[in-house]
């Protein structure tokens, strides 16, 4: 029989026992829906986590330190990259790093401990300079107040715990001013120094100048109070409690622990940094850039291994969600077998007539197969739609809950095209497998016996 005729007959047969076939198809749809809803939850959560982590800058960043002062949490193996001369992380290095291909941004880590004065109180705390790119990292979503108005603004964002130390009403701090007291590092040249002879005596002839540490104050306007710790994990150095724009922090020329070493090495005029963050275009570029930076004589660290672990966790998570969803589909496939076996009993005489009229065993088998496949196809389509509705309801409910907690809504369920298509194909395959036994049983019926059946 031609495929078109077979399809017409199958659809006609399905239409005739509309209630029973609809219920069976609904069973398949529920099975597919549970599978799709489970997997869409897995995909949605994975997408959400990936987006958040990517935007956090943890996985597209390489943390660079000078081998002189810090070898990072993952020291290189003894026989890894060839030994290079240790270098300072100074402006020259920054320029060199920013010229590497796939590098999008290089910024120094400016972090210092200082006194903060507000309304007559003086507190010692940790300050961190934030690059302007962290505005879009997602870490500041839900913050009270606003991000810095410009990359060089004299503004500060406070971490809530520290804000509570300064005031009983942290949000009321927004718009107020605080003062930083810090140690400024200033270089002076040989020519400008009156005690040249003394310096020469101290450092030996030919040493160029020195550095001075000068106490300074800086007044900053508080523009935001944040509940989470936006710098947690960046560089692996722990969080800070006061944030200011990176360029503003750079202009302060705060004395860094490396300054003394730089001075002793005879390079006091150029400021050096404890660490720099190199952002690359995408996480897959991290390894290559890390190698190039090591070749330049710096120590590096990235969280790429952590990403791999995360993917493993999500793959196992998806597998379990898929297994639970598949259980429902297995139950639905039993429904298909039951429906088709019942149909054979009911349509025994019809099978006999078809055979008497010249239908081959294959024709009869194909007819039952087509009916099972059609139930799978329709069940698959309805199931994907139902799964999407369940996923949307979950997202909707979660968003309402999060908004009540003053948190931004998130899309926790996501159905990519491959999941929708895969679920429909899977439903058809499961239905065809379920139809295998009834179809072959129908095909094997003896026409004489079938015609005798009342």
């Amino acid at each position, binding site marked *: *029989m*031609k495929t078109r*005729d077979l399809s017409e*007959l199958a659809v*006609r*047969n399905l239409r*005739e026992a509309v209630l029973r076939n609809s219920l069976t198809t609904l069973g398949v749809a529920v099975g597919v829906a549970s599978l799709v809803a489970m997997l869409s939850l897995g995909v949605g959560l994975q997408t959400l986590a990936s987006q958040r982590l990517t935007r956090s800058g943890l996985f597209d960043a390489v943390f660079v330190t000078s081998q002189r002062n810090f070898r990072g949490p993952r020291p290189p193996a003894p026989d890894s990259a060839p030994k290079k001369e240790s270098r300072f992380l100074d402006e020259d290095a920054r320029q060199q790093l920013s010229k590497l291909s796939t590098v999008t941004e290089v910024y120094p880590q400016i972090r210092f401990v200082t006194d903060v004065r507000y309304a007559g109180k003086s507190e010692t705390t940790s300050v961190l300079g934030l690059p302007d790119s962290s505005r879009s990292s997602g870490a500041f979503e839900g913050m009270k107040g606003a991000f810095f108005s410009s990359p060089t603004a004299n503004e500060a964002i406070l971490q809530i715990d520290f804000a509570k130390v300064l005031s009983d009403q942290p949000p009321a701090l927004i718009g107020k001013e605080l003062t930083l007291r810090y140690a400024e590092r200033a270089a002076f040249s040989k020519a400008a120094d009156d005690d040249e002879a003394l310096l020469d005596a101290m450092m030996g002839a030919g040493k160029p100048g020195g550095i001075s540490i000068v106490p300074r104050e800086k007044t900053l306007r508080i523009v935001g109070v944040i509940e989470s710790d936006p710098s947690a994990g960046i560089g692996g150095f722990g969080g800070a409690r006061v944030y200011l724009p990176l360029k503003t922090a750079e202009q302060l020329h705060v004395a860094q622990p490396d300054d003394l070493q730089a001075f002793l090495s005879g390079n006091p005029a150029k400021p050096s940094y404890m660490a720099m963050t190199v952002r690359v275009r995408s996480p897959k570029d991290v390894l290559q850039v890390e190698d190039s930076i090591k070749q330049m004589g710096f120590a590096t660290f990235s969280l790429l291994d952590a990403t791999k672990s995360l993917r493993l966790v999500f793959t196992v998570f998806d597998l379990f969600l898929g297994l639970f969803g598949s259980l429902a589909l297995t139950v639905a496939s039993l429904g298909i077998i039951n429906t088709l076996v019942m149909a054979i009993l009911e349509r025994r*005489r*019809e099978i006999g*007539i*078809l*055979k*008497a*009229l*010249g*239908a*081959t*065993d*294959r*024709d009869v088998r194909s007819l039952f197969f087509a009916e099972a496949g059609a139930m799978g196809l329709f069940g698959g389509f309805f199931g994907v739609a139902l799964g999407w509705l369940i996923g949307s309801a979950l997202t909707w409910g979660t968003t309402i809950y999060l908004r009540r907690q003053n948190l931004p809504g998130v899309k926790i369920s996501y159905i990519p095209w491959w999941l929708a298509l895969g679920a429909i194909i899977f439903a058809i395959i499961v239905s065809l497998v379920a139809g295998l036994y009834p179809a072959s049983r129908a095909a094997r019926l*003896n*026409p*004489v016996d079938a*015609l005798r059946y009342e």
Partner: protein
Amino acid sequence: MPAAPTLIQAESVIREYRLGETVIRAVDDVSLTVEKGEFLALLGSSGSGKSTLLSMMAGLDRPTAGAIRVRDRNLDELEVDELARYRRETVGMVFQSFNLLPRMTLEENVELPLRLAEVDRHDRESRVAEALERVRLGPRRRHRPSELSGGEQQRGALARALVNRPAILFADEPTGNLDSVNGEQILLLLREFQDSLGMTIIMVTHERPLAEKFANRIALLSDGRLVSDGVRH
């Protein structure tokens, strides 16, 4: 006048069924020849083996022993698919209980053998119309079997049997469920097919008067055996 060629040849055909420990011989060593264009009536009482013999000749069943040859081909040697093809292309069948599919309209029922034979859609329409006209059911083509009388249903079944233009038409008690008027109408149609289309007709019946009135030849079976053969009209 030259003798008509032999179309069907049954040679010492035996058909046994097993019911638990008991073996029932439904057809017992029957040999029979059917010539092209004949109207043969297989006459006998209930359980005489006439329907079993018809089923074997129609390719629906296989003998336990012996052979049935149609156009010199032993049906028992045909593969399952070849036997289905024989039923589709060489044979038309009519049953006592009409056996129209209740979900289909009359014309869809008549179209069914053409679907199975993969006949082109354009040809189907005209062939279905022609078959229905031949049994005078053209105006009822859109009706379902439940909307037709017994006689009309059997005429519809006749249309379905001849739509593939078979060489042989097997009719198993075609008048069994009909009153005498409708029964005669059906047999008249069978005679008409025999005369106008040159069809060979083999009919199973237990009604001797009808067999004598319409068939060219009567073969009488009793307890699975061929008792007499060759009463010609």
